[in-house]
């Protein structure tokens, strides 16, 4: 379904002045993002590097916190993935979930797209 959504996004954003990625790129990026946000350690491992930086802004303390590997909460199935920009082997992606926003920096490493750095914030209540 996630790939389906990204594909639909491409169709919809086709009317925009400039699509951020080719259909092939968008599908590959959407797939790695779906792996990263899955409730499945194997898929998360496939999507990340050993040292992927995962950080979150705490809106209460106004501090930055490190999220230990394996401690990221899986995103809701109804999340929305937006490829904000792509340049060569790099991409900037936002994921809008029901409870938080994730910003992902994605890059090509070893011939595969990988999540390199992330920054998240929960919705304020």
């Amino acid at each position: 379904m996630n790939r389906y959504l990204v594909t639909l996004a491409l169709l919809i954003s086709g009317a925009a002045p400039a699509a951020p990625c080719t259909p092939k790129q968008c599908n590959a990026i959407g797939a790695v993002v779906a792996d990263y946000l899955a409730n499945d350690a194997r898929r998360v491992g496939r999507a990340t590097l050993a040292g992927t930086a995962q950080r979150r802004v705490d809106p209460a303390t106004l501090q930055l916190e490190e999220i230990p590997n394996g401690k990221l909460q899986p995103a809701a199935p109804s999340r929305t993935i937006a490829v904000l920009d792509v340049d060569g082997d790099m991409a900037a992606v936002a994921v809008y979930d029901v409870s938080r926003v994730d910003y992902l920096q994605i890059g090509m490493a070893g011939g595969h797209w990988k999540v390199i750095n992330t920054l998240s914030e929960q919705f304020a209540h």
Partner: protein
Amino acid sequence: MKPTYLIPVAMLAMAAGAVSAAKCDKPTCAALTAVAQDYTDGWYNGDGPRMRRAIYDKLVKREIRQGGNETNVNELSPDVLVNYTAQGYGKTDDPARRRHDVQVLDVYNGMAMVRVDMQDWVDYMQMARIDGRWQIVNVIWSHHPIEK
């Protein structure tokens, strides 16, 4: 198409359509641009303290290289970045060599995604507002392709 697909798709359309629009209010955009400018001007002026001001003290800056190995993503520490800056690795007074195009890609409350086109490379920056001050916390970057 199942009706349940419609809401996320509509949200996605909104997100995709907004990418090229202004993503932040004027004060926020100005604050984010000022931080990016500390980074770019710091680099081109050889001004280490100005670079230091722009970045989080635990900045993660990683280079994406063509043919890069996934176990060896090149990382630059904040101290090394500031030292390179202060040593004048990027220093130039030539306006034609000081490209610094800043584009705010997205903002949500205390975090932002920003693209900066420098003379020789592109940075994707994640900025966070920590104790009320925007700082660059995560960066991936890559050199411009060599023109043949």
